[in-house]
């Protein structure tokens, strides 16, 4: 159940399954996709705004369903994360949508959809979203995105390597995304089997002790003891949001301590997630990681 790679003239539909994004912030994204030769459509919820959600649940769920079932749509790009995908799980028939495999691209709150679609057997893309095209980025950011959607290698020459935490090489399906949403998915029907997987984690705006709590949850559920390797991006802003009385402990100290005894190849500072210059990485397909080299290599393509 792999999506098809995009060709010039294909249609990318932008949906807003989570929080709203001001229309004008999409302009640069639409301009870039159009310049690459793709047609761009905006789902109706992209223009809506209801509290911290872009439109109500029914409208957001319908936009995703329509995008997957419409044969004239070739890829589904999320406008932004924020919050809202988990509210849609009861309204989406993921198993049916996964039978119409399409590139589904986003990260952060979109992790909830990655886990659900990966559990249903469809690979997805942990990639930059509509909100990411407006600012100046390093060249690998757009190159990686373009490579992914056109079916070539997303790891771009010149992009940063990770730092090694636990040396070793390992192979497995790359699964994960935003740590908070991986935790929230535990116990639901929409979570893939992490046994033998390479776990991808990153987060933003979490206090240090909550990073600890989330990693502790993944220890206590057994997820961390099942995976074959761990690729960490960054816990963005965690070190700058300490309360004035809070201890001087960094996210790296917390992560290192919580992963103590896990003993699978592990690397951090891999360029993904809530950082300025992330790569766009397929999830749900097999990769090989080399922690000492700080590298990730895809063993298959996200597209047919």
């Amino acid at each position, binding site marked *: 159940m792999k999506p098809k790679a995009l060709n010039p003239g294909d249609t990318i539909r932008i949906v807003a399954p989570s*929080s*709203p994004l001001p229309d004008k912030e999409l302009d640069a994204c639409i301009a870039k996709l159009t310049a690459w030769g793709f047609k761009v459509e905006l789902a109706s919820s992209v223009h809506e705004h209801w*509290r*911290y959600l872009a439109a109500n649940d029914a409208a957001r769920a319908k936009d995703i369903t329509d995008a997957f079932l419409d044969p004239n749509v070739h890829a589904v790009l999320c406008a932004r994360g*924020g*919050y809202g995908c*988990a*509210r849609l*799980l*009861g309204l989406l028939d993921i198993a049916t949508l996964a039978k119409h495999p399409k590139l589904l691209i986003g990260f952060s709150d979109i992790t909830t959809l990655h886990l659900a679609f990966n559990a249903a057997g469809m690979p997805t893309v942990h990639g930059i979203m509509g909100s990411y095209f407006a600012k100046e980025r390093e060249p690998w950011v757009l190159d990686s995105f373009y490579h992914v959607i056109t079916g070539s290698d997303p790891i771009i020459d010149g992009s940063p390597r990770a730092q090694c935490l636990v040396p070793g090489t390992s192979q497995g399906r790359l699964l994960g995304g935003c740590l*908070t949403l991986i*935790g*929230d998915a*535990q*116990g*639901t*029907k*929409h979570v893939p089997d992490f046994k033998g997987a390479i776990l991808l984690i990153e987060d933003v705006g979490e206090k*240090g*002790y*909550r990073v*600890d*709590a*989330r990693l*502790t*949850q993944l*220890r*206590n*559920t057994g997820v961390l003891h099942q995976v074959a390797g761990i690729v960490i991006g960054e816990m963005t802003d965690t070190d700058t949001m300490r309360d004035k009385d*809070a*201890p001087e*402990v960094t996210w790296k100290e917390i992560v290192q301590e919580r992963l103590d005894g896990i003993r699978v190849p592990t690397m951090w500072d891999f360029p993904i997630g809530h950082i300025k210059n992330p790569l766009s990485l397929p999830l749900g397909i097999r990769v090989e990681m080399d922690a000492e080299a700080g590298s990730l290599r895809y063993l298959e393509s996200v597209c047919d």
Partner: protein
Amino acid sequence: MALRPILAGDTIRLVSPASPLTPDKLDFISELLRNEGYKVEVAPHALEWIDYLAGTDEQRAEDLMDAFADDSVAAVLCTRGGYGCARLLPFLDFDQMANSNKALMGFSDVTTLHLALNRRGLPTIHSPMALTLHFPREDFVYESFKRVLRGDLARPAGAPTGECVNPGVVEGEVVGGCLCLLTDSIGTKEPLETKGKIFLIEDVEEMPHRLDAMLTVLINTGLAEQAAGFVIGEMTRTAEYVPGIGSRPWEDIVKERLGPLGKPMVINFPFGHMKGMLTLPLGLQARFDAAAGTLDYLEPLFQ
């Protein structure tokens, strides 16, 4: 299973299973307990301090296990929450703790321990802690705390009732506590179980969208649907606005997410992180009348 009673002259041991605190924070509760006729002991590592934890996991777990194992200790009262109980799961023998029949008292991060002991049939007590009572509280807070220690579960005069969202009367075991710890337990070997139970939920300092997300976890896992009714406290100091995401009053989020399940439900029931909190047994049968905003216990706390 009823608890071992806490009699005049009995010892209550203070433990710190989660975050640290300074010694002065123990003064008020120690004096209150002594005035009630109890002896007070401070566990060996209760005043340890390592970053956001009161000692190593091994030290905190050892203090808990020792307090439950020591026959001269009648009840175990936590000094504060914060964070750290979930880290202790691999180090604690909950079966042994439950077999002691002793009261564990506390709330907030201690929710993790309440869940594990309640699952084994042992009642626990959702109560203010040393840090909670370091700050002045309304009279009913002290009254409720002292009465429950004596096994008197009658509602004290002056305690507020909950505000009805959905009317209805249900009976069942009382379970729950602090929302983020309830959801963190899901998928672990000591998970939240809600089937047929009166479900207490409160939290502190969450962002509005995270409150929504955690209630959505309860919905997506089926745990909300399985509960008999919802006794919601307060989502204390929920951030009013999160840049880039937005805001919404916590009451609206709770009503919108859990209200449509149609179960008896109140909000602002006095427990947890709000200013005035009752001391409430968990793991005991109670009768919840949402229209009246009351929770009345149907079985004794002590043997």
